[in-house]
């Protein structure tokens, strides 16, 4: 027994020593680059989302900035290249992500941290960004309580609409045809059982009811559902002219495929995340014509088409028609804010981001005074092989709406 105790003690000491020894020592600062870091899901369930929407934008931006020789910082009176000194895999675990953000900010002491992917992760990371004063350009996040959140976390910025605004954008389209009698007031709505689906269906539902629509079918389905045939059949049987799905990419593809198979042709067919993906158009080709989706994009904006081609060439990944350009735009804002502030001091850069707008980006001018991008594409539509913005109708470059959706 005594030997066993000694061994236990030795082991404990060894373990404690191992822990301390293994904690990394931070590297010395490199004044000849702007040090960027991020932790994002490279493996696990979130990897596909990050790989589609966010990572190519990060890669392209770094490539673009350095192709121009870097960002001009007045403080040093020269162009300083950006360098991704830390690129971490959060393995789709929120706990890991939080820890790695802390590592980026307190160990690696990078100059700027780019946000993780997904609403949940960004909301969880917001307190840490705020605590260490890092600008938090949380593109892939939206919530119904954004106003309150940005008050609580002064470094946080939202770029996509709030769920309720997506609802308003869609309803604006619907109203036009309902009022002219071309569309009945029945709605069939399904949503994915996740953060996103819950908030979207709540946001849509409230808006729709307020505008006098009758939601004849409302269902949620679990994340990773293997079959949505019943949902499409029920929607078909419900007599609704409008089908709305607050869906994620796998379900968006599955719902569309099932609707085609089942010959379900509502006048408005709306699916959410994934509709704007280039793969959607590539897969459904002509059948995508007239499908509505969340987000939108104006390819006619200055630099937009150029960006599209450049990302495809540099990263091999075509951007989607919604969050991808906004991701790139958010980084353009960061770049311009650093230039305008003339310093790498995060507090000053943060102030500049807030007050220095509007910023000219590939997504048009963006102002961040309220920390929330108010006026953004809410709904888009596939038109002749491109996903374009169709609502709100007062957006510059809005395209005329195709009504009704042609049969598959």
């Amino acid at each position, binding site marked *: 027994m005594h030997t066993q105790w000694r061994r236990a003690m030795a082991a404990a000491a060894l373990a404690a020593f191992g822990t301390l020894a293994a904690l990394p020592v931070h590297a010395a600062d490199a004044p000849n680059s702007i040090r960027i870091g991020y932790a994002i899901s490279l493996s696990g369930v979130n990897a596909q989302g990050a790989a589609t929407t966010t990572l190519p934008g990060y890669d392209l931006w770094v490539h673009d900035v350095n192709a121009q020789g870097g960002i001009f910082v007045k403080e040093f009176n020269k162009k300083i290249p950006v360098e991704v000194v830390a690129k971490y895999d959060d393995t789709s675990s929120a706990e890991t992500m939080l820890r790695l953000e802390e590592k980026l900010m307190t160990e690696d002491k990078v100059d700027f941290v780019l946000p993780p992917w997904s609403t*949940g992760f960004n909301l969880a990371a917001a307190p840490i960004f705020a605590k260490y004063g890092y600008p938090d350009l949380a593109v892939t996040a939206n919530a119904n309580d954004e106003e309150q959140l940005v008050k609580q976390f002064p470094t946080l910025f939202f770029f996509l609409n709030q769920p309720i605004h997506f609802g308003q954008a869609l309803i604006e389209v619907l109203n036009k045809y309902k009022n002219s009698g071309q569309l009945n007031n029945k709605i069939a709505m399904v949503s994915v*059982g*996740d*953060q996103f*689906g819950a908030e979207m269906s709540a946001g849509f539902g409230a808006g729709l009811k307020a505008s006098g629509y009758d939601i004849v079918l409302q269902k949620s389905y679990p994340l990773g559902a293997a079959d949505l045939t019943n949902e499409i059949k029920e929607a078909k049987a419900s007599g609704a002219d409008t089908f709305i799905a607050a869906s994620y990419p796998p379900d968006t593809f599955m719902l569309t495929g099932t609707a085609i198979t089942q010959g379900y042709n509502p006048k408005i067919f709306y699916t959410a995340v994934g509709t704007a993906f280039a793969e959607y158009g590539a897969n459904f080709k002509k059948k995508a014509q007239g499908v509505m989706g969340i987000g939108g994009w104006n390819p006619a904006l200055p630099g937009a088409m150029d960006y599209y081609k450049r990302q495809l060439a540099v990263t091999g990944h075509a951007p989607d028609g919604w969050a991808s350009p906004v991701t790139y735009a958010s980084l353009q804002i960061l770049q311009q804010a650093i230039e305008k502030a003339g310093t790498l001091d995060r507090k000053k850069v943060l102030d500049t981001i807030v007050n220095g707008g509007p910023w000219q980006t590939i997504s048009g001018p963006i102002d961040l005074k309220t920390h929330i991008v108010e006026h953004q594409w809410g709904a888009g539509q596939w038109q002749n092989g491109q996903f374009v913005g169709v609502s709100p109708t007062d957006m510059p470059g809005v395209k005329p709406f195709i009504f009704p959706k042609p049969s598959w």
Partner: protein
Amino acid sequence: MAASAEDRRRRRTRTAAAIGALVALVAVLATVPLLTSDYQLSFMVNVMSYLVLTIAWALFSGTTRLVSLATSAFFGIGMYTVAMSIKILPLYASFALAIVVGAAVALVVGVLTLRLSGMFFVIFSFGLSEMIRELMVWWEINQTHTMGRYVYVPFDTTMIYEHLLGLAVVVFLVGWLLRRSRLGIALLVIGEDETVARQVGINVPFTKVAIFIVSAMFMTLTGALMAPRFSFINPNFAFNPLVSFVVVIMALLGGLQKLWAPVLGVIPLIILSERLQTQFPFWYSVLLGLVFMVIVYFLPRGVTGLLEDIWKALGRPLALPRGFTGPLLDAWAWLSRPIFLPRGLAGIIEERWLKIMPRANEKR
């Protein structure tokens, strides 16, 4: 009896020394927040939380040999109970509530699973965690119409760390006392042969459920303590099935033979994961998988086994008195040492405690 008295005195001083050393170790660990950066502290929080989870897991699974994948269920119940009650209850009250809920669920589950064994139990516990997660998702979407809950409380990482450290000490003590108690020996017999256990008068269902509840309470409290760390919680964060798998892997990596063995599984695995995540982000999965396989094929007895082999190789003789009291004392030593685990999963079991076996003789 002189030898025995001598031995008792020696044992007492050694126990005192060991306790003293442990107290010192805990004291050192308690001062960690003063010395480290925030990241290092959150690293230690991670270590501590998995340490508690793994030891708690071993309390039940190590003795009864039922591999439970319900860790994430109880961890999630703890976390989610806090998330749901934090607006109406003081923090510590919500921790207490979490423990009560966890214990109640464990009671029901324990009773339902009494007849299950082997893989049936493993997958039952997995299915249970997933069902709870799906139910919580559905509840949040359809009843509250939002899926996130914020836990903003003045309970910072330092507080979480200190509480987890305290919890680790408690779970360690519980394990230590358990192995020196009636209940501990009952669990051993149950783990080896339930029929015999009944035949020596052990109330098998009661004992199994009791230890399951104790184990679950620690897991639940860990989840509850981690809630303020997440600050934003949804069911998919809280009921992450990976936690269950990681805990099993850690326990098996450390070995189940000793109470402190999980330490040797938790720390290397966390360090390794962290290294891979940060230094080889794109190769994380491949490298982690390769490490697992190396462990299985080249280190079948876990890190503890490796350590013991090294220890033995250093040539420490294990002199124990023989004579009339010899067998008794040996048996006593056997009983008072942490559990002689089923050859279990981590590898080939030590053939005999008292015999020093060269590694070359090991049966492959």
